Every structure is written in C-alpha cells, then in structure tokens.
C-alpha cells in the first residue's frame, strides 16, 4: 500500500458497498443494473431473448383470437409479477430485505413463453421507473429472470405434478428453482461479460458465492411464496386454476367410488319404491288385507256384518276437504313461526362465522 489517497478511496468504496448491501431497504440484486454490461454483451443477450419474445407475440395473437380476455389477463399478470417483485421479504442471513422474482408464479399460471413475455414488460417498467435493471441490460435480465426462471419453474412444476406430487410441494420446488436458476444465469452473464483476460470460472464462482448469503434463503422464501399462492388459489378459487389449465380437478378414486355408491343406492331405492307401488296396485285385488280376509270373514260367520261408517270419507270430496283444512292450518303455523325457524337461524350462523373469522 503505497498511495494513501488510493487507500482511502478503496476503503470508502468498501464501506459504501457494505452500506448499500446491508442498510438499504432492499437489496436489489435480482437484475443486472443499467450500464454494467459492455455493449457487445448487452446486444448478445438481447438477441438471445428476442426469439422468445417473438414467439410470445405470435402465441398471444393466436390465443387472443380464441379467448378475448387473454390480453387483459397477461397485462394483469405483468402487474402481478411487478408487484410481487416489489414485495420486501426479510432475509435473515444477510440482515436485509430482498424481493422475490415472481416468475415462478407467472410460469405456473400462464406457461413459460407467456411468462417470459410478461417478465419483459415488468422489467421494462421497473427499469424505467425504479432504475431497477435497465434498458441496456434488458436482454440479459429477460434471459436470466424470464427465460431461466420461467422454464425452470414450469418444468419442475409439471414434472412433479405428473409424478403425483402434492400441489404445495410442486409449487415450492418451482419457486425455489425460479429464483436459484435466475441467480445462476445472472452470475454467468456478469462473469462472462466482466472476466476480461482472466479465466471465466473463478469470477463466476466468486459472484455465485457472493450471492449465496441473500439468494439461498431468498430462494427458499420464494418457494414458500409460490407454494402458498398456488394452494391459496386452489382452495379459494379452483376455477382459476382449471381455466388456466394449471390443475385439472378430477375427482379422486375414493370420491368417484362414493359417488357411484350414492348413485346406485338412489337408483335401487327409486326402482324398488316404483316396483312396490306398482305391485301394490296389481296385487290389491288378489291379495286382500288381514281385516278383509280374516276379521271380516269371522265376523260375518258370527252374524255381525260391517256397518257403513258414520263419516264416510270415501263418499264425495270429504277427504279432500279434510286435507284442505290440514294444509291451511299447517300453512298458518309455518307462516307464524317463519321468522323463528329461518331468519333468526341464519343470523345466528352469520354471527358464528364472523366470530370464527
């Protein structure tokens, strides 16, 4: 150490870096900052990202013709990725807040190509208004966060679901991979652009190791975030996941069996009651009851034949009149007690639900 001014300069840099990494509100390490990549590398990464964007545009045009709400959905999904990537998540090991990528969620919901497209929009708005990422590093950020993160998350989720893994676990792994793959590619991009005449591997390893204190726990947190999201949506609004073809809610074997048993039972009851009703009518004449075949017969043998009843309900509309009276009095009682039976009961249910909440 010869020059004291230079020494002070380097120490100032060291302290300011530590300050910015440890004490600022959020460690915005997700994207490569504006101006860091040299022009050829910036151009190269943009060219790598371009085919995915073109494919995305073609797919959107096609899908928008089939489903007119697809474009608004993508716009809103870009807003979701933006908002999620602005959520501060505490990283205990680094003592800072960082933020998730959000691409895992979009890849699961709208597929990898659409997720790349959506990420490009979120990155553009972040670069413009938050100086988070940049125009010159837009291509590199799309490749790391969009292409790498989305593809890793999507395939992890799909493979795990095919292997019948639970929804939470599939989402968790997808979230972790979306984050970690993003960082591995970011490290690769930085190292390949900045290694100069030195070998590539040591710089790549150094950057990767530098990311570990924040990104290792952050990846796990992103896993929980993605898993929590997918489970929450599947519980509250399974129709969304069905509509987006994320999960097909086919009934399980047990549920199918239960439903089959229910249907069989219902059919058996219906058929048997129909048969009973029919047979009763058919057999009514040939099989008289005990009263007629035994009691009446014995009574007649002893000279005591049956009298006509004092109130003969088989005559005229008397039976109908009695039914009418019963219906009127029943209706009156039901109307009188309606409030007690139904309205107050519902109020009680609502109160109970509110208390539970």
């Amino acid at each position: 150490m010869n020059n004291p001014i230079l020494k002070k300069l380097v120490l100032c840099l060291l302290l300011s870096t530590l300050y910015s990494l440890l004490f600022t509100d959020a460690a915005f390490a997700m994207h490569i900052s504006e101006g860091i990549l040299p022009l050829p590398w910036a151009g190269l990464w943009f060219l790598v990202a371009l085919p995915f964007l073109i494919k995305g545009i073609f797919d959107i045009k096609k899908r928008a013709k089939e489903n007119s709400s697809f474009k608004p959905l993508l716009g809103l999904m870009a807003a979701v990725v933006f908002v999620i990537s602005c959520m501060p998540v505490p990283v205990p090991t680094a003592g800072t807040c960082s933020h998730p990528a959000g691409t895992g969620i979009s890849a699961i919901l709208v597929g990898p190509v659409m997720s790349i497209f959506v990420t490009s929009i979120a990155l553009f708005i972040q670069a413009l208004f938050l100086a988070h990422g940049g125009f010159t590093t837009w291509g590199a950020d799309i490749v790391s966060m969009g292409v790498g993160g989305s593809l890793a998350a999507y395939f992890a989720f799909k493979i795990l679901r095919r292997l019948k893994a639970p929804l939470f676990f599939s989402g968790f792994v997808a979230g972790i991979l979306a984050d970690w793959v993003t960082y591995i590619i970011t490290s690769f991009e930085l190292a390949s652009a900045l290694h100069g005449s030195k070998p590539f591997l040591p710089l790549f390893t150094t950057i990767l190791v530098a990311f570990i204190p924040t990104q290792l726990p952050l990846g796990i947190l992103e896993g929980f975030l993605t898993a929590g999201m997918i489970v929450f949506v599947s519980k509250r609004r399974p129709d969304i996941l069905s509509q987006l073809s994320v999960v097909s809610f086919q009934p399980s074997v047990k549920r199918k069996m239960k439903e089959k048993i229910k249907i069989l039972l219902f059919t058996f009851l219906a058929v048997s009651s129909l048969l009973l009703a029919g047979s009763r009518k058919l057999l009514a004449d040939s099989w008289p009851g005990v009263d007629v075949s035994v009691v009446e017969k014995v009574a007649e043998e002893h000279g005591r034949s049956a009298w006509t009843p004092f109130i003969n309900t088989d005559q005229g509309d008397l039976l109908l009149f009695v039914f009418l009276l019963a219906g009127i009095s029943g209706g009156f009682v039901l109307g009188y007690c309606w409030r007690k039976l139904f309205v107050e009961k519902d109020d009680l249910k609502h109160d109970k639900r509110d208390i539970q909440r």
Partner: protein
Amino acid sequence: MIKEIFSDSFAQKENYLTNIDARIKLIFVIATMVLCLLSAKSFLPLGIAVAAICFLGTIKVPFRVMLVRFSAPLGIALTVVLLQIFLFGKSPIIKVHLFGYTLVGYMEGLQRGLLILSRVTATVSLVIFLSMTTPLNKLLAAAGYFKVPATWIEITMLAYRYIFMLFEDVSIVRDAQKMRLGYSNVARSLRSIGELAGAAVIKAYDQSLAVQEAMMLRGYKEKVIYSSAAKFTPGDNVAAVIFTAFFLTLLIINFNIR
C-alpha cells in the same frame, strides 16, 4: 413516496423538457447510452450524468427522489467495483487482511471498476431523465412509431394501468394480515406472504375479466388505439438540433480521449 418515485407524475407537468417530442428524447437517450457504454474513460459518462441531473434540477425534480432511484443500481455497481479491484490487475495498491486471508487490490482493477461505476451512473441518470420528462403513454406511442410490436405496447399499457390498483389492493390485504398478527413469527409470515400473492392473483384474474368486458363495451377489436405520433413542432426541431449538437460534441470528445 413510492407513487412519487414510481408514477410519471413529474412527466405530466408542463415544462420545456416535457414539451419536447418523445421520439426525439428516446433517440437521444438511446444514442447517448450507447456512447456511454463505448467510452473508454470515466469522465465522459460522469459529465453526461451531471448534465442529465442538472437538466432535471431545472424542472425541479427533488434530489431525494433521484437519490432513491440511484441507490439500487449504485449498490450493485459498487459491488462490481470491489470485485474488479480484487480480481484484476498487476500493480497492487491495497492489502486487506480478512479472517486470515490477504486480499490484494490492484490499480488496473480500480480503474476498470470506476469506469463501470461511471457508466452505471450515466445510463441510470439518462433513464431517470427520460422517465421524469416523458409520460408512459407518449413513450409507448413513440415506441410504436419505431415499429415496436403493437401487442407488446398494448399489454404494457394494460400492465402499467393496473399496477397502482394492485399495489393498493395488496397493501390493504397486507395491512389486514398485519392487524391479525399475520407476520408475528416466521411460520405465520411465510403463510401470510403466500396468501398475499394468492390474493393478488385472484384479484388480477377477476379484474382481467372485468377489463375485457369493459373494453368490449367500448368497441375494442383486438387492438388498442393509442395516441398516434403528432407532427414535429418548431420547438421540437430546435430541441433536435440542440440534442444532435450535444451528442456530436460528446462523440468527438470520446474519440479524442481514446
């Protein structure tokens, strides 16, 4: 604060910079960014950064807002500077003893690092200049003029429109979760943040259906009509001449200092 930083509220104000056509500013900013990345010395990008900040100062953009926007990229840039110092070069300038290891910093690495730092400062200040003086709708209309695909522009407009709404909804849910001790320990925080993301997705899905319905009612036919680029005014022509002169001067300086 977030709205002040994030929205284009400064760009909506009337002043001599916001009145310049977005196409001229877009070309100037992109060309100057390319020049910054090509420059071999630090002082040219630093000069561009100072000029951009001074221009923004004349339209009374608060310095703290600029500083907040600078903080994130500068944090990353400073890390890169440190990596450059300790990994590149032959002439040692500093030795740091850390946990039994001796790290040697080099002069060449420091120069390279400072060049990257100056490039970051310049390009970020140019982006801040563009976003503080051009509303997004005009910027996207200018992008459309330069043949950026209409689908991309349309979805970007939709995304920008609904970001603020989603921000509000998410913050309401987050406040409710906090009130119910949703972040009182690690396990609850993890659960709450997953539910928060889920709530955002559900809200976005429902809103997209409502937007589609509203757009259909307003005669939407698979293409949003955004304000087409207007004719250049005499003021725009003057601005174009000044920007070109400024850029050519920078270009000459850049080639002379190589």
